[in-house]
């Protein structure tokens, strides 16, 4: 892996994040950290979804299922041993990676929309399991009491923001690396024509398993800090359809074939939603997602990234 401008920018963003959370270099309002956390969480989810959906053309409706399993892994770890976040994140990632692998095996033979429906069914089965599992609170929900402060960040939410920033940088870097590697070219071959790819000797099954595992892992790590952010988690909010809708809409709006697409889409749509929550504050708020999504898929099939390319005149 060669270092280039991307890595410089990523490192700069991480440093800037550290600067504002640890050293309070900029007079940022605390609300910005809460809102920023949610936006960054969507960066991770959208990027994770895009590894399967955008690169490989396999639509996952079950984002909320993976996200929630990540969150509930944290609940289990908290109940078992009051584990710190540093433990929760990798374990949640590992559990969801296994789940992704399992789902990959189960759906090996499914293509296109059948796969999408299987993921939806998986999310519902998982939700039913959690609802009936009293150890993690069942349908009643579970409380997680977070510390008020944590050194050296001060406020705990600033710490969560910083962690999510690192996770987002990690996710985007991973997606970018995959996109440019041999694996990514294999994914693209599957997206364009799976049968032809298989005939040409692309190991489609193995690639699919890699995609479901990596994507699951990233969704899991996005879910792990959720319980500490909210302080209270119950199935209907953890398995909220909003996660599935957003993680599809964001790459679509940004542009699904490149790592920059979900990043742009999540930053844009996520910020719009955060702002709309505290400004419009009515049903119109929900309408934004729907209208933007329909508008973009009709008018800008390649998303914002595609528009920019076209505008530059170098559209591929």
């Amino acid at each position, binding site marked *: 892996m060669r270092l280039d401008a991307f890595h410089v920018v990523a490192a700069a963003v991480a440093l800037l994040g550290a600067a504002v959370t640890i050293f309070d270099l900029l007079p940022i309002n605390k*609300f910005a950290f809460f809102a920023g956390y949610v936006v960054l969480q969507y960066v991770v989810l959208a990027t994770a979804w895009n590894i399967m959906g955008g690169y490989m053309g396999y639509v996952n409706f079950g984002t909320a299922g993976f996200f929630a399993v990540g969150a509930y892994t944290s609940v289990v770890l908290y109940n078992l041993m009051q584990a710190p976040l540093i433990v929760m994140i990798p374990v949640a990632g590992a559990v969801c990676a296994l789940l992704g692998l399992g789902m990959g095996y189960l759906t090996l033979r499914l293509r296109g929309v059948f796969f999408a429906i299987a993921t939806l069914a998986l999310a519902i089965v998982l939700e039913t399991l959690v609802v009936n599992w009293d150890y993690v609170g069942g*349908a009643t929900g579970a409380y997680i*009491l*977070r510390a008020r402060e944590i050194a050296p960040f001060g*406020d705990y939410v600033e710490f969560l923001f910083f962690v999510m920033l690192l996770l987002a940088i990690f996710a985007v870097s991973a997606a970018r690396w995959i996109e440019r590697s041999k694996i990514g070219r294999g994914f693209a071959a599957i997206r364009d024509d799976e049968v032809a790819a298989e005939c040409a000797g692309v190991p489609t099954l193995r690639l699919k398993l890699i995609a479901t595992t990596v994507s699951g892992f990233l969704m899991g790590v996005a879910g792990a800090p959720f319980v500490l*952010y*909210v*302080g209270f988690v119950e199935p209907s909010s953890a398995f909220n359809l909003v996660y599935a809708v957003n993680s599809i809409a964001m790459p679509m709006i940004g542009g699904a074939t490149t790592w920059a697409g979900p990043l742009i889409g999540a930053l844009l749509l996520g910020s719009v939603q955060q702002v709309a929550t*505290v400004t419009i504050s009515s049903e119109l708020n929900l309408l934004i997602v729907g209208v933007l999504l329909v508008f973009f898929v009709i008018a800008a099939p390649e998303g914002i990234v595609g528009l920019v390319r076209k505008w530059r005149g170098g559209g591929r």
Partner: protein
Amino acid sequence: MKSFGKKRLFGSLKKSLGAAAAVVGVALASPVQAGDTIKIGFGMALTGGLAGAGKGALIAMQVWAEDVNARGGILGKPVELVYYDDQTNPATVPGIYTKLLDVDEVDFVVSGYGTNLIAPAMPIVMQRGLVFPALFGLAVNEKFKYDNYFQIMPAGPEPMTDWSRGFFSIAMAQDPPPKTIALVGADAEFARNAVKGARETAEKLGLEIVYDESYHPRTADFSPIVNAIQARNPDIVFVGSYPPDSVGMVKAATEVGLKAKLFGGGMVGLQFASIMTALGPKLNGIVNYDFWVPEPTLRFEGVEEFLAKYQTAAEGKGVDPLGYYLQPYAYAYLQVLDQAITAAGSMDHAEIGKHMRDAEFDTVVGKVKFAPNGEWAKTRVLMVQYQGIEDSELATFTKQGTRVVLYPNEWVSGTINYPYAE
């Protein structure tokens, strides 16, 4: 509190300063921020699953603000409500309350509607030591144990079991007393807790639990459940359910011809005008919890005026046209705050919190006194029985005698028709 430390470079230094800032901040908060108005902030479910109730609560709160401002405000200052839609999604709540406190610089925050939307605000409120009047959450404070939390829902000091106390008290007073019970509830927060409380009480009373199941909230047809209950022939049936399944349950019970002697308990939704008019005579005989009904024993001072104003304001807004259930309490939790601020004579949260813990308040829902855990000092979960309903007109349910109070004794307004399946 960012303004206190823009250039702090060391974590440890920051931490100690941060603690100091928090203390100073609370002390400073009122005189510095108090402009010409008192701002009260909250998130409320205006879309999503709980929006029906949330919108009704919001109208009640707006009626309160108008009333207060008409009489000259609090401490001579007009009040202003600052609110955002939490979309019935707990994940939006931390952001909303931080925005309210740090950007809008509200003087007070109160909770949105429902346990799931109260709990996520608790860490933020606790961190800043604010008084937190809350609207209809069940046993939220059991884990947090926060002394400035005040729950207006009259569940009582032991919310889990107090909830269904009346149902059992009525059942055990019958002759002969029931021996068997069926418990059924939705797989969701409130219903689970309500059934859990009922289970504990039933075990304590030595009732034999012959059926104990929960169902998915999406269930479309409840006749298999009611049939399964019927097959075990329980004397009484306790249900913990949400609006759509309450309707499904009642319809299935009348269709199957449930033979239980007492049926109801914790069914949310049967208090709503739209559902009462949809079910009409099918409601007769059901004994269910309620918080306010138009019975002579519950005509507290100001409640009728409030309801009249609410009903005018609610017209054409797609919300409950009667506003009996949660609306008077949404008005009352602000009344409590109002009276506590006035009594404290300042906007100091510690002072106001102390007053809220100690004093008794006169509200449109009667006298309110809080227990140390922030719940009502004494339960007032009413058990009412639907009686003599012959049609599905809205006006029917505004008449006294259609929902007779059977419990607690202080508020009783009629006698029970027993058994349910007469």
